[in-house]
């Protein structure tokens, strides 16, 4: 039964074929939640988010502009909502506050959809957005960034002007302007700081509480664009992934590479750290979901999921009932 399958899944993934996949690490099984007969490429999943703090609903945003609600208890899609059209670009961010849903598309149109009413609050955040992320502690604040679009933090209660706009770094050693390409954003818990990773393989930390609008810390990793970023439960580090399949743990105090996580062969599209356990789940173009342990950087689980994967969502509950996560390296 679909509800039994969806209740045991602890990791949710969205693929390019439009299929929502649920993975249960304890049972070592992966399930597809979709209708096989009505698959199409324009239902490709771009963004995923939890619909509520209890993690009983998953919101799935597709290329054709629809946001579907999937209930993890019942195992079916309960609602579909038209939130834009493909001409505006793909979804780059999806978030939920109290009773409203926030969506952002590539053209820069950030919309707040209120539950029950058709009126929306719209903000234009600039063109070429690559990512919109919500502050998990102050849920009315969102940050956006993109190609030639610097990091901006918006307060949804005062939507006319951003509360923080980042300034570009000084000219480089050739006295040329450094290009801006923010690919992913993360909010550091218990502080005001924001960390971003760029397409020019830089990781930058900004602090809006200080008058300095330039990055407080800048670190470089690799030679390829960084595509995904995630902050683990333990403070002071960040996990980044690039288009070559290199995952690295960077230290945020000095900006040095703590270590690399091996195994990926394709570009990293989705990365998420578990809220309490030292685990990180990564998915990408090589059609695998990998779960690494952050303590010893070893591969804990590897799952083959036949389509290219775009995003990953981890549930906060314990991924393995057995407790010890070092034992099995089985793949499905």
């Amino acid at each position: 039964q679909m509800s039994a399958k969806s209740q045991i899944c602890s990791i949710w993934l969205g693929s390019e074929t439009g299929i929502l996949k649920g993975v249960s690490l304890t049972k070592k099984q992966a399930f597809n939640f979709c209708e096989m007969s009505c698959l199409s490429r324009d239902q490709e999943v771009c963004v995923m988010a939890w619909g509520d703090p209890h993690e009983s609903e998953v919101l799935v945003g597709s290329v054709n502009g629809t946001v579907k609600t999937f209930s993890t208890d019942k195992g079916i899609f309960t609602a579909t909502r038209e939130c834009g059209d493909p001409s505006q670009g793909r979804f780059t961010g999806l978030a939920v506050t109290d009773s409203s849903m926030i969506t952002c598309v590539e053209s820069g149109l950030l919309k707040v959809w209120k539950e029950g009413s058709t009126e929306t609050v719209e903000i234009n955040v600039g063109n070429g957005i690559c990512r919109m992320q919500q502050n998990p502690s102050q849920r009315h604040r969102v940050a956006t960034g993109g190609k030639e679009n610097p990091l901006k933090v918006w307060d949804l209660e005062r939507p006319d002007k951003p509360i923080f706009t980042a300034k570009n770094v000084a000219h480089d050693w050739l006295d040329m302007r450094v290009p801006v390409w923010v690919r992913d954003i993360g909010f550091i818990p218990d502080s005001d700081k924001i960390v971003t990773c760029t397409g020019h393989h830089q990781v930058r930390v900004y602090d809006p509480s200080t008058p300095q609008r330039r990055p407080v810390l800048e670190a470089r990793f690799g030679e390829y664009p960084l595509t995904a970023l995630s902050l683990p439960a333990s403070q002071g580090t960040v996990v980044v992934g690039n288009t070559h399949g290199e995952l690295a743990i960077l230290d945020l105090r000095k900006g040095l590479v703590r270590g690399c996580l091996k195994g990926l062969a394709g570009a990293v599209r989705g990365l998420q750290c578990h809220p309490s356990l030292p685990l990180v789940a990564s998915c990408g173009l090589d059609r695998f979901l990998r779960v690494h342990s952050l303590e010893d950087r070893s591969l804990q689980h590897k799952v083959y999921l036949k389509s290219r994967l775009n995003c990953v969502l981890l549930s906060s509950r314990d991924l393995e009932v057995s407790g010890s996560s070092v034992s099995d390296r089985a793949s499905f």
Partner: protein
Amino acid sequence: MDSNEATTSESVSKKKGKTKKVKRKVKSDEAPVQEMEQAEGEETEKKSESGPCFPPTFSVSEIKNKQRRHSMFLKLKEEKRKAPPKEVPKTIENQRIYDETTVNPEDEEVAFDEGTDEFSAYFNRLTNPKVLITTSDRPRGRTVRFCEQLATVIPHAHVYYRRGLALKRVIPQCVSRGFTYLMVINEDRKVPNGLVLCHLPDGPTAHFKVSNVRLRKEMKRRGKDPTEHVPEVILNNFTTRLGHSIGRMFAALFPHDPQFVGRQVATFHNQRDFIFFRFHRYIFKNEKKVGIQELGPRFTLKLRSLQKGTFDSKFGEYEWVHKRHEMDSSRRKFHL
């Protein structure tokens, strides 16, 4: 029962001279002793069968009595027939570690993925292939001749001189002129050593390492030059998901309907992650016998990376990158 077993085991252990009696050891002692007894029994049986004891080195032909000699020969044949069957030798292909991405033909999801990917336009017969072959800048003799021969092998292929142009600027121009493939042969020290195969509208780009290039005049016992007929295509052993993508990439190079009148066939054979390209002309001598003549160039390819999207080595997203230290650690693991 238990006491009897204990006594027999005691006697066995005493015979063997062991003093310790551990249950597990007792059981293991019993088993080999039983085997030994059986073996002894067999030997005695054999000895009784052969009759009078012969010296160890003798052959059947030394027996002067014709009837006895004949019966001995038949017994020898019988024993040979009962010999254990021939063992299958272990090869690296036999011992290959099972790849979990191996495509199951009935898989719906993979079928949908392949039915709607970048090659779907070709496989649904909406476009015809048109290939542009070029090289890295300033190619030397061998590479130039290789390109010309490739252009005869692949139908609707055109060779253009590179003139130092940037590939990122060449690609939009190719798309506007209706090309479906861009093939760039990289040259190093007067010998072709790399191949970038880019599917044009917005398709994947594969980067290969080319080795062992043999031009037409270096081939022994070759046939006459290939004709303009469209060849058949054989793709061997592309089993994994990545192998499927690469196999489809090669298939989309050639037009759909082969002209069997031409009797030409191009083969891409994958073995141990190396792809061997051969071009033959075949002729059926009768129902069961075929003669083949190798024509055309011969080369080996090894996949280095597969990138989603057209050629953009710096900012593109890679679907598969060959990482030597992680992927080549086992001699029995292959990816294609």
